[in-house]
């Protein structure tokens, strides 16, 4: 049994209030949002188990700061989808614009299409799986978590990376400062296998390369000034 909220007739504030209240009530209900029409800040701040299906594409910051909820966008997502997500699962059936999963602390962001620039910027523990390609400066200053890319990565992947793990199946146009290719050890294969399964991705872990921090910029050293 699902409840349908039509954004052609229901204001954003009302939609979010209903979703936030239902999530907080831990009723594990299903909601369908129709006529999303690129609305910003949709289904943000949900805190509890709830499933939301958005029919159509969303604007900025859909599913922002999500906790525990499952949100499926049956279209494409605008900038900052699932920004600062804490837990739960956010799935984008189409493409995601820039800053997807920015600063996310946990949960899974599953992008079935491509992601634009700065995907996973400053990520702090979130897992992001992109079935297509990602744009430039992705995982910039990424701190924790896993970014999995089934396609190709653009320029300056993982620039100024901290401890996040990056897995790319296709080509990487260039690596950013302090980002290097690393050995794929058995524990990484296991992590990747689990993430690919969760995301329903048709790929084998062995096809990927792993990238991570060289840790040379962790403490300032004048001999590394050229890297800045």
């Amino acid at each position, binding site marked *: 049994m699902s409840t349908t909220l039509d954004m052609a007739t229901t204001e*954003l504030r009302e939609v979010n209030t209903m979703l936030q209240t239902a999530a907080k009530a831990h009723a594990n209900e299903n909601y369908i949002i129709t006529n999303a029409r690129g609305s*910003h*800040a949709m289904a*943000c701040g949900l805190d509890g188990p709830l499933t939301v299906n958005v029919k159509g594409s969303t604007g*900025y910051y859909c599913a922002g700061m999500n906790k525990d909820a499952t949100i499926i966008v049956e279209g494409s997502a605008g900038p900052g989808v699932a920004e600062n997500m804490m837990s739960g699962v956010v799935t984008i059936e189409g493409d995601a614009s820039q*800053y997807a999963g920015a600063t996310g602390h946990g949960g899974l962001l599953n992008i079935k299409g491509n992601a634009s620039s700065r995907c996973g910027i400053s990520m702090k523990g979130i897992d992001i799986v992109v079935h297509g390609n990602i744009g430039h400066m992705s995982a*910039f200053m990424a701190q924790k978590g896993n970014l999995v890319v089934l396609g190709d990565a653009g320029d300056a992947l993982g620039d100024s990376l*901290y401890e996040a793990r990056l897995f790319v199946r296709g080509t990487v146009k260039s690596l950013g400062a302090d980002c290097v290719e690393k050995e794929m050890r058995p524990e990484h294969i296991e992590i990747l296998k689990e993430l690919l399964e969760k995301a329903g991705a048709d790929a084998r872990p062995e096809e990927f390369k792993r990238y991570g921090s060289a840790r040379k910029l962790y403490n*300032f050293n*004048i001999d590394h000034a050229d890297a800045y």
Partner: protein
Amino acid sequence: MDKTPQTEPRQSWTFSNSINSEIRRAADTGIYDIRGGGAKRRVPHFDDLLFLGASMSRYPLEGYREKCETSVTLGMRFAKKPIELKIPITIAGMSFGSLSGPAKEALGRGASMAGTSTTTGDGGMTEEERGHSDKLVYQYLPSRYGMNPDDLRRADAIEIVVGQGAKPGGGGMLLGQKITERVAGMRDLPVGIDQRSACRHPDWTGPDDLEIKILELREITNWEKPIYIKVGGARPYYDVALACKAGADVIVLDGMQGGTAATQDVFIEHVGQPTLACIRPAVQALQDLGLHREVQLVVSGGIRTGADVAKALALGADAVSIGTAALVALGDNDPKWEAEYNKLGTTAGAYDDWHEGRDPAGITTQDAELMKRLDPEAAGRKLRNYLNVLTLECQTLARACGHNHVHNLEPEDLCALTMEAAAMAQVPLAGTNWYPGKPGF
């Protein structure tokens, strides 16, 4: 043999001993000088303004009998729950990490006793701070260290930091010496590494995006929390106008004397404008938009005395914010630690290597032993006393000018001692009815 007469040895003004010492330091280390605090150079400031006081044309209020109100409400524009403060002086954002836990607790205690708010900083919200602050403003910074929706909802207001006076356009760096297990855990980073704080937000660029970001924050917090936007004193007219456009309830404007935990000295001393120069353009922007007093203006950067508070309010601010002065009130740079300052190669009053984490006063440190030197209850009472003195001084000046609320102070109550201050504050040079740039002259 007769000695040839010689001229007295003459030091160069251009290559002074201070400059030469910096050249030698740079040559030895290969890195720019990093320090805490705000601009130390002499810039036109509130000291260059005077109140005229009441006389034949207006009458004063009796100091010990007639009321002079000090309360202020912040965040009336869109927020459902504006912040009500007893005094127009708030505590500025300073991070846990940069400051010790006891120091943050002391700030909360002092501010709460005085009836005002304190503010988190980069690194998230601590229990000490939330627990001891009646009103807590939660900073939303580019790094988003420790950011989470639960803390967002238990804050009393949200301050989106676009910039700060010590370094408009710059990010920050908390050096590895201060990255203990607790600090690192809150920031999701390894212990002991230098932690960069980005200069731009990761998921928006420009005021159009910021407007949508504010919409998201309001949706997450049920439109209850006042949203502040903090900007460094760079282009105050346009920055304030754009902050209003983006949907701010409150604007915090920080001049170049405003402090930082750690930044390059060249940034602190050479970027941004003096606080005095920022206020009138900011107020003008609010007036041009018809938003003066609807969007509140909080001014910070070099506020030390009740006279500074009164002068900032007279120029159009709704409140002021203090950081460095609050730390001094807690015990920072106290001469009682002189011997230890000397060991660090400095002296009380000049100690600014806050980033190194060896603060003898136990304030700008994460060292467990040094931290014990600060008693948060006693330090909190000192801050309360200091805030009370600032308030009494401000009231004294307002009454002398005939005002029953400190917000009734106005530019007409002031004159300037120097041409520079007259031009920046747009109040007449003392003894004249003129200031540089005044229309019609």
